[in-house]
């Protein structure tokens, strides 16, 4: 039939199934914890989801899918009926089934070639294990009360009564007797509902049991491993005839397999059409089930049994209306679901040929919809005409015929109004039909989405309220969002234009206000369309954590908070992989094994918390664990060892920056690579992917305490906060998440901060070198600047960024520099335009500065993808429409760095070198400040020194010119007197030899320059960092001794000398009062 199945239908199926599958997983995990006390609501939800997949896939002819989902259904049925408890192994089998279904769905066309045998067998195993296990027998017995829907193997509730219809015996070929199985209608209904086949067995105890070395009990166990034994007379010794009988509800639908599984001859097995049994005794089925028979506390899977409706309907192939009886509940459900009614007929010849043709035809019927009426089984046996009425989702005649593999003119669609009329005419149903409708309606509704909080058990009886949804293409939504945005622009323009008119015409104002409001609201709601709760992505992590922790032999508990925080669908979709990686990291490297945790005093189960919340218009997603944490030093050491960074750089890094090194490509601190992680590619990819989404990743960790990885993501990729910049008259936007900071360098500081490393311009930013790119260069634009006086744009022909610092280069190039213009113009406010605006951008672990001409400020922009014809322009990541309606390009910071061929490695090396130099300089400074000393002396062999910085000037003095005035030696100097200070008076130094001529006077900066220190000769000026050793003795004027590469010099204090000199000579050549005041301070410093 697949030839007829159209693509659209398959697409629908894939989309549907994806949704179902994603909803199943959390529910299964919830079930796992519930053991015997399963929440029926949850089981039913899972069941419904699996069931819809089964139904749809079998309709489309994807056998693999329908088989697998069918087997899963069987296991779920056991949960639902309380026959099995939900052990981890069984949930494993189901989860594996879900995974396989997902694989099949994702590549639906290839699905027939994929083997599901492994999953199927583990599911069967899960089924059979449980049914044989005594533990499971105890559970449901206590829970469901005495009248379980299915008989435990040892005590079948049904009885086999009398001799029955000839139908079965006839096919059996005479050897087998005919039998009627009497059992509760519920059992059959449930088996049918679960898609189980009914298999009748004839056993000869002597041959089939004793002969094969098994007891009746053994055999019943075998039966139960294939499904569930509904009725059996094995335990009844007085049964008549040679045969014992069993009725088995089984997931096996192949006679050969059944025979092999049960180790019986194929001839002893008959598949019974469920309808056949029902048709034989309609009262038993359709009469309202006796309360005792219905298992207490279990929802009835189907709200059937609210009486029957007799009516006549026109039928294809016959002139007279065909009288038929329908289940009222079924009919109402079909009407409520807007199904289409197909009346059809077959004859035995159609079903001839293969021996299982009848079964396969009935299966076909079931896969296409719900049988409301069917007497085909009887017809097959009678060799007459069989009729059926099907309620189906199929609308097209052609498709229905194809699906049922019927020749033409066998089918007719009946109007639903016909059935509505019949219902209306008939007497009201004994029960409210609502109860009957509920399950069906819920089945049609999309499975409820994550996080599917387990409803209270009391809610069991209540139908799940379906949320009305509609599936719409994303492109349509995008188009609507576009239009809404455009409407906002239009509104803004209109409001501007009408502002004046509204003053004149007050009636305009309320209209404008209304329009304003509606437009805003419209846009807000439009944006909501793309938003989906994070739960869609986070929902898979309980499973991931569960499996990983088992695989790793660790224990972990995952808490998810804020699953309802909403994010743009496109971001959400790309979040899954990075998050999975982070969770894996947490479990593999973060959490310790339980024993280790206990020895550390931590609870044995590691805590992993995923928390999402809004902050500053961004979505924050934190993944926190209480594991061993990351040692930032180790990360840094590893990065250093791998040569990813230099040693000096490491020293400069903060704790957080060191942790961030973990995102460098190639870095992994894991001691050993495991299956799960440790290959050193992960974090790099995670960080890159997050950045691609317009987000940012940050790691916090404390060794021994735990690690937190924070992701900051924009709410939507469609609208992002951005920085709007300009070069020339063009405007560009940069995603705010790429921007680290803005730096404005005033032109007078340009020379200090802008330099070249090789050919590359760099900027010094807090001791780091930042490679620079000029936006106009990267885009190949002519550099232009606005003339501050005239406002016109002029070409700027300076070649290098660094030229901004000097005027020479600019002038040499012949263009007026901004400085010149500034000087020429009377307007001096143009100055700021001359500053260099640097936008510091992050690209992965690297940073660079983008020089732009203008910074316009922050703005929220709507990101639009690049049109196809400019996709290969790597400097742009998208386009947007600005408030004025013009298109602006969004810069791709990574692309620009690539385009500009930024060599981050080279810059890093230069930075490292610079840091090394700086460090060694600083290390030297740490030993002592560098100082220049003026070296002089009175005799050779005795070296005296004064800090050059304290010396105002030197004077050459002719000894003959020295005069004595009031006890002091003076020389005439510059129109005034210069008193001479003899060092030997204050210090134990050799006096200036009397024969020395000329002699020198050193005039210190302190004081009023009226005192000169006498010496016989000036030797040199020396630069030294050498430390000053204290000089013993009561000489305040002696600071100490300095070792100048082997020669010792006595370092003097000019201040102290002048002070002593002033004390000795209080009058009249006054000492500068300022010096006198300063002196004590200096003295105390010296002391």
């Amino acid at each position, binding site marked *: 039939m697949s030839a007829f199945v159209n693509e659209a239908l398959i697409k629908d199926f894939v989309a549907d199934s994806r949704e179902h599958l994603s909803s199943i997983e959390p529910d299964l995990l919830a079930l796992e914890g519930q053991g015997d006390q399963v929440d029926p609501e949850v089981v039913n939800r899972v069941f419904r989801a699996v069931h819809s997949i089964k139904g749809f896939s079998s309709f489309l002819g994807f056998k693999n899918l329908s088989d697998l989902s069918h087997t899963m259904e069987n296991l779920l049925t056991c949960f639902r009926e309380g026959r099995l408890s939900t052990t981890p192994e069984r949930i494993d089998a189901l989860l594996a089934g879900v995974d396989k279904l997902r694989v099949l769905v994702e590549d639906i066309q290839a699905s027939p070639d994929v083997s599901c045998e492994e999953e199927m067998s583990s599911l069967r195993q899960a089924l059979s294990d449980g049914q044989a296990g005594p533990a499971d027998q105890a559970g449901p017995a206590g829970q469901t009360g005495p009248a379980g829907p299915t008989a435990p193997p040892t005590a079948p509730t049904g009885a086999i009564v009398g001799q029955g219809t000839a139908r079965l015996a006839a096919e059996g070929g005479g050897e087998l007797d005919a039998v009627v199985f009497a059992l509760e209608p519920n059992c059959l209904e449930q088996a049918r509902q679960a898609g189980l086949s009914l298999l009748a067995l004839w056993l000869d105890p002597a041959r089939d049991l004793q002969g094969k070395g098994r007891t009746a009990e053994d055999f019943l166990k075998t039966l139960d491993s294939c499904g569930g034994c509904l009725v059996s007379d094995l335990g009844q010794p007085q049964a008549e005839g040679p045969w014992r009988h069993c009725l088995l509800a089984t997931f096996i639908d192949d006679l050969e397999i059944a025979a092999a599984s049960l180790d019986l001859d194929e001839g002893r097995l008959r598949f019974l059409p469920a309808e056949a049994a029902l048709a034989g005794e309609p009262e038993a089925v359709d009469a309202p089930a006796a309360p005792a028979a219905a298992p207490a506390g279990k929802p009835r899977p189907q709200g059937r049994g609210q009486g029957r409706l007799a009516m006549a309907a026109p039928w294809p192939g016959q002139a007279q209306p065909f009288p038929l009886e329908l289940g009222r509940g079924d009919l109402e459900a079909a009407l409520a679901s807007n199904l289409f009614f197909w009346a059809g007929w077959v004859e035995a010849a159609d079903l001839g040929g293969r021996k299982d043709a009848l079964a396969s035809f009935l299966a076909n019927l079931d896969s296409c919809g719900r049988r409301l009426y069917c007497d085909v089984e009887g017809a097959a046996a009678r060799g007459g005409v069989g009729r059926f009425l099907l309620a189906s989702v199929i609308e097209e005649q052609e498709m229905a015929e194809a699906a049922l593999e019927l020749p033409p003119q066998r089918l007719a669609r009946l109007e639903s109004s016909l059935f509505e009329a019949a219902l209306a005419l008939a007497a009201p149903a004994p029960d409210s039909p609502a109860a009957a409708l509920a399950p069906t309606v819920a089945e049609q509704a999309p499975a409820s989405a994550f996080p599917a909080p387990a409803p209270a058990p009391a809610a069991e009886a209540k139908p799940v309220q379906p949320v009305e949804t509609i599936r719409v293409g994303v492109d349509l939504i995008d188009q609507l969002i576009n239009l809404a945005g455009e409407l906002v622009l239009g509104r803004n323009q209109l409001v501007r234009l009408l502002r004046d008119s509204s003053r004149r015409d007050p009636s305009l104002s309320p209209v404008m206000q209304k329009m304003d409001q509606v437009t805003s609201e419209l846009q807000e709601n439009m944006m909501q369309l793309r938003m989906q709760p994070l739960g869609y992505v986070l929902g898979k992590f309980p499973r991931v954590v569960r499996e990983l922790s088992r695989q790793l032999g660790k224990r972990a508990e995952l808490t998810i908070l804020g699953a309802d925080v909403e994010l743009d669908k496109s971001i959400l979709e790309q979040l899954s992989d990075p998050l999975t990686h982070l969770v894996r990291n947490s479990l593999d490297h973060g959490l310790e094994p339980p024993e280790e945790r206990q020895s550390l005093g931590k609870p044995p189960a590691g805590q992993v918390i995923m928390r999402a919340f809004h902050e500053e218009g961004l979505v924050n997603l934190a993944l926190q664990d209480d594991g061993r944490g990351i040692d930032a030093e180790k990360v840094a050491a590893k990065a250093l060892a791998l040569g990813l960074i230099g040693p000096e750089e490491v020293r400069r890094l903060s704790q957080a920056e060191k942790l961030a090194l973990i995102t460098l490509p190639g870095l992994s601190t894991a001691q050993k690579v495991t299956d799960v992680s440790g290959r050193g590619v992960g974090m790099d990819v995670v960080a890159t992917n997050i950045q691609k989404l317009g987000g940012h990743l940050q790691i916090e960790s404390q060794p021994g305490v735990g690690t937190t990885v924070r992701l900051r993501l924009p709410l939507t990729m469609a609208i992002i906060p951005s920085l709007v910049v300009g070069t020339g008259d063009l405007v560009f936007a940069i995603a705010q998440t790429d921007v680290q900071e803005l730096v404005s360098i005033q032109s007078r500081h340009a020379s200090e901060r802008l330099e070249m490393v090789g050919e590359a311009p760099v900027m010094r930013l807090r001791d780091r070198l930042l490679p620079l790119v000029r936006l106009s260069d990267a*885009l190949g634009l002519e550099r232009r600047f606005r003339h501050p006086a005239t406002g016109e744009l002029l070409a700027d022909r300076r070649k290098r960024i660094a030229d901004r610092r000097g005027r020479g280069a600019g002038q040499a190039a012949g263009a007026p520099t901004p400085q010149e213009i500034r000087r020429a113009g009377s307007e001096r406010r143009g100055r700021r335009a001359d500053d260099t605006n640097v936008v510091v951008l992050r690209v992965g672990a690297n940073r660079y500065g983008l020089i732009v001409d203008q910074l316009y400020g922050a703005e929220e922009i709507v990101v639009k993808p690049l*049109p196809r014809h400019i996709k290969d322009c790597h400097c742009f990541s998208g386009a947007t429409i600005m408030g004025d309606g013009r298109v602006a390009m969004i810069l791709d910071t990574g692309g620009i760095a690539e385009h500009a061929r930024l060599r981050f490695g080279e810059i890093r090396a230069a930075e490292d070198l610079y840091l090394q130099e700086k460090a060694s300089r600083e290390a030297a400074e740490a030993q002592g400040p560098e100082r220049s000393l003026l070296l002089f002396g009175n005799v050779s062999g005795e070296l005296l020194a004064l800090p050059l910085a304290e010396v105002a000037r030197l004077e050459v003095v002719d000894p003959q010119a020295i005069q004595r005035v009031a006890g002091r030696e003076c020389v005439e100097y510059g129109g005034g007197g210069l008193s001479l200070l003899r060092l030997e008076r204050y210090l134990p130094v050799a006096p200036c030899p009397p024969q020395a001529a000329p002699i020198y006077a050193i005039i210190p900066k302190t004081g009023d320059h009226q005192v000169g220190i006498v010496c016989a000769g000036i030797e040199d000026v020396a630069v030294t960092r050498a430390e000053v050793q204290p000089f013993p003795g009561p000489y305040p004027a002696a600071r100490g001794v300095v070792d100048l590469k082997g020669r010792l010099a006595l370092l003097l204090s000019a201040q102290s000398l002048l002070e002593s000199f002033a004390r000795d000579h209080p009058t009249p050549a006054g000492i500068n009062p300022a010096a006198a005041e300063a002196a004590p301070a200096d003295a105390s410093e010296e002391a």
Partner: protein
Amino acid sequence: MIHQFVTFKVDGRLLGVEIVRVREVNRVLSSTPVQHARPYVMGLVNLRGQIVTLFDLGLRLGLGPRRLTASTHNVVLKQEDVGLVVDEIGEVVEVNQDDLEGPPANLGGLARQFVAEVAKLKDELLVILAVDKLLTLE
């Protein structure tokens, strides 16, 4: 069978595209240039919230670049958000199937791959452009 063509002029030549391939003709021309793009991409314009790529049809066809004048128009295509910038917009011309011919040997500088057919009108030759070829990225 009658074909309808939107006609326009580029460098004095009468060109046309099938009317079913044209979404609209407008004068939305204040475009934002895209650096490093192909030379014939004039830039992007905002057409009611949709970003349309403007092609300089002259450059695209191997002729000279456009100069925007009062008669310059933007012929926006249906298939993709691309607008063809033309010097002057003409009438919608109906041509009988029989009057359409394959491209002649001499197209006078027009890149041959972009010409689908030609139609001889009363006093002019109408060159029908192959829109898919125009949009192909090479």
